[in-house]
């Protein structure tokens, strides 16, 4: 990717779009706010471990419960262990159950926005083994600890539908990094397993030389995460620490908490040289199939769409100003078709309630053919990113509509700047929902703030100050969960660089493919 991926639109084009937008504003539609937050089924993410066994039937504990001995009882998922029980009924079939669960993100997907409310945990037991008690009522079985969420998992021996003995296994956390040395800008892969299900076990925070770099979660990836940060200078030794975090922040004395096993991981990384500023790089999340059809700006319900017309777009995602072919059939023959872009205008600043409105931006007015078909072309407006709808309207009725996802795009960054002076980062296509309206910014792996594209119609222009010694300095822009206006009680992952956006992004289930942008400047004397 070059540092000028988009050439600036011409003045005439800007004026045309602004005029179109203004005309569209006259067609103001009331904002629709239908609050229906619910856990969204996570998408199928490649490489995520499945459940360790079939879901166990409900079983009640007996009054005189025994205990099970697991050896070892603390290890990473995938470790072999022995489970032994005594004092049970002889000659009985034993089902071994393991407590686990699933985690989903809770989103409120509406026509005019998406709210992010956190996560939902559902707990249950799965069967991980079978055994039979001997003539003395004992059994011993070799098992493999599931590659599961971290933390303590309750194990029950179930006989005749009753939980007769209890044991436990702690799936411990592992963190590795690779490589351990390299020039400035080297991607450092951090691999984490054993992120837990409970709030205080479910996050990890990365510190680089004691600067907050970002947050790692594995809610929809069964406690696993593989993320990247980049080696920041100067040349020499640096410390990378991965702490347990609860509400986005590192828990610095977790040893004194009720979860003392979540001790931090510390690594040394050697920056070998400054080989110059690396080229801008866009890191996309894993490609997944969304699990929910709801898309912003689609007219609520099928009642809004009249007739039997169908429409297709030549592509269903792209950056601003993308040329998109529109084909349709079933339209009223020989009648004009208003092609309109459904979007919103507003912001979340000093906002009570819903401080934005749905608007229609005209894209053109072709005429349907004698057979009711249409072949036309539109240009994606220079506006908000995220999900929009292209609507085909005849005689005031929406005859068909098709969703289109506007990708975030990198425009430019100042390449060389003196220390203490400002430099500019320019992006387009930033969205407006709580899932995609902001980006979190780090400077040399230190979180410095966020940028929002809502009020500026998808434009993000940041004027930052260059600091540090002459040489290469890194600026990384990560997806962020914006949790204000409206604010909900303590949603996790809030307002911080989400390093695990690539596999555990809350918006993935809704088709929000939000990238990270890895940029750099050269500071000169």
């Amino acid at each position, binding site marked *: 990717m070059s540092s000028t991926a988009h050439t600036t639109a011409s003045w005439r084009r800007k004026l045309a779009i602004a005029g179109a937008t*203004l005309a569209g504003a006259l067609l*103001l539609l009331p904002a629709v706010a239908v609050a229906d937050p619910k856990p969204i089924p996570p998408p199928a993410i490649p490489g995520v471990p499945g459940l360790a066994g079939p879901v166990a039937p409900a079983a009640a504990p007996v009054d005189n*419960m025994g205990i099970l001995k697991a050896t070892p009882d603390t290890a990473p998922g995938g470790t072999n262990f022995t489970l032994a029980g005594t004092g049970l009924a002889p000659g009985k079939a034993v089902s071994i159950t393991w407590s686990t669960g699933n985690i989903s993100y809770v989103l409120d997907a509406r026509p005019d926005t998406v709210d992010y409310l956190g996560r939902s945990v559902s707990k249950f037991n799965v069967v991980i083994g079978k055994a039979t008690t001997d003539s003395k009522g004992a059994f011993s079985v070799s098992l493999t600890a599931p590659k599961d969420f971290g933390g303590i998992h309750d194990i029950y021996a179930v006989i005749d539908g009753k939980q007769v003995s209890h044991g436990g296994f702690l799936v411990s956390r592992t963190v590795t990094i690779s490589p351990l040395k390299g020039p400035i800008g080297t991607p450092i892969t951090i691999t984490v397993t054993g992120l837990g299900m409970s709030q205080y076990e479910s996050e990890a925070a990365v510190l680089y030389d004691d600067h907050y770099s970002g947050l790692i979660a594995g809610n929809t990836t069964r406690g696993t995460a593989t993320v990247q940060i980049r080696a920041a200078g100067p040349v020499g030794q640096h410390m990378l620490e991965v702490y347990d975090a609860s509400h986005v922040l590192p828990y610095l004395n977790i040893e004194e908490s009720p979860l003392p096993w979540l001790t931090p991981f510390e690594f040394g990384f050697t920056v070998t040289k400054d080989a110059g500023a690396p080229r801008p790089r866009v890191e996309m999340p894993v490609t997944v199939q969304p699990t929910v059809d709801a898309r912003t700006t689609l007219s609520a319900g099928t009642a809004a769409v009249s007739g039997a017309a169908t429409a297709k777009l030549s592509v269903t995602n792209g950056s601003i100003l993308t040329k998109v072919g529109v084909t349709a059939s079933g339209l009223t023959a020989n009648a004009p078709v208003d092609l309109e872009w459904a979007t919103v*205008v507003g912001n979340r600043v000093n906002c009570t309630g819903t401080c934005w*409105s749905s608007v229609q931006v005209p894209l053109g007015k072709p005429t349907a053919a004698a057979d009711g078909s249409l072949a036309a072309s539109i240009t994606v407006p220079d506006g908000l990113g995220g999900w929009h709808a292209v609507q085909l309207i005849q005689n005031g009725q929406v005859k068909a509509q098709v969703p289109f996802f506007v990708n975030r795009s990198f425009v430019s960054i100042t390449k060389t700047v003196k220390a203490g002076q400002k430099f500019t980062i320019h992006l387009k296509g930033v969205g407006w929902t709580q899932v995609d309206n902001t980006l979190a910014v780090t400077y040399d792996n230190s979180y410095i703030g966020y940028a929002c594209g809502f009020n500026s119609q998808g434009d993000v222009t940041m004027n930052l100050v260059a600091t540090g010694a002459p040489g290469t300095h890194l600026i990384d822009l990560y997806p962020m969960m914006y949790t204000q206006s409206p604010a909900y009680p303590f949603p996790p992952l809030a307002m911080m660089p989400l390093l695990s956006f690539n596999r555990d992004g809350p918006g993935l289930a809704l088709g929000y493919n939000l990238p990270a942008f890895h940029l750099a400047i050269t500071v000169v004397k």
Partner: protein
Amino acid sequence: MKRLLAVLTLAIGTAMLTSSALAQNPPTPNPFPGAKHQVFLYVDTVQNSHPKNPAVTPTVGCSQTNFFRRGQGVVFRSWGVETKTGLALTPDNVRYFYATIPGVATPLKLNFGAHGAGSNAPWFWTVNWDIPNDYPLGIVNYKLFVRMKDGTRTSFSQDGLAATSRLTITP
């Protein structure tokens, strides 16, 4: 361009609509009156100030928690009321009061006594359980049993509590 957008934003800003905050359904209330019980028990667990393993001595003794490390002492505490008389549960009306713990062969007998300094120290039922260093991790499905001198029996278990609220053994 900027001016046009500013006008547009202003125009739309005046037309903004507000909506009610997130609507949430209230939880279904329990029916009233509820089931009648002859004995009411309050039960909690606190940390023994002087566990057998000094390495896991709590920073603050007698502090309420459901998370205990191996080697610590769990102090089960209980207060009770006989609902038909309104009398507190004491040795005067209790025949026995004990706790059963998975893997512990002999039930643990709760004793009634004063706790704390001073003449107004509260009296309640307690028993300590020293957690073995190899006790299984995870939830402890303990139960308390009371038999009154008039023959009434009652028990307490953690059934219905969230897993994260139950007595839990940690490394």
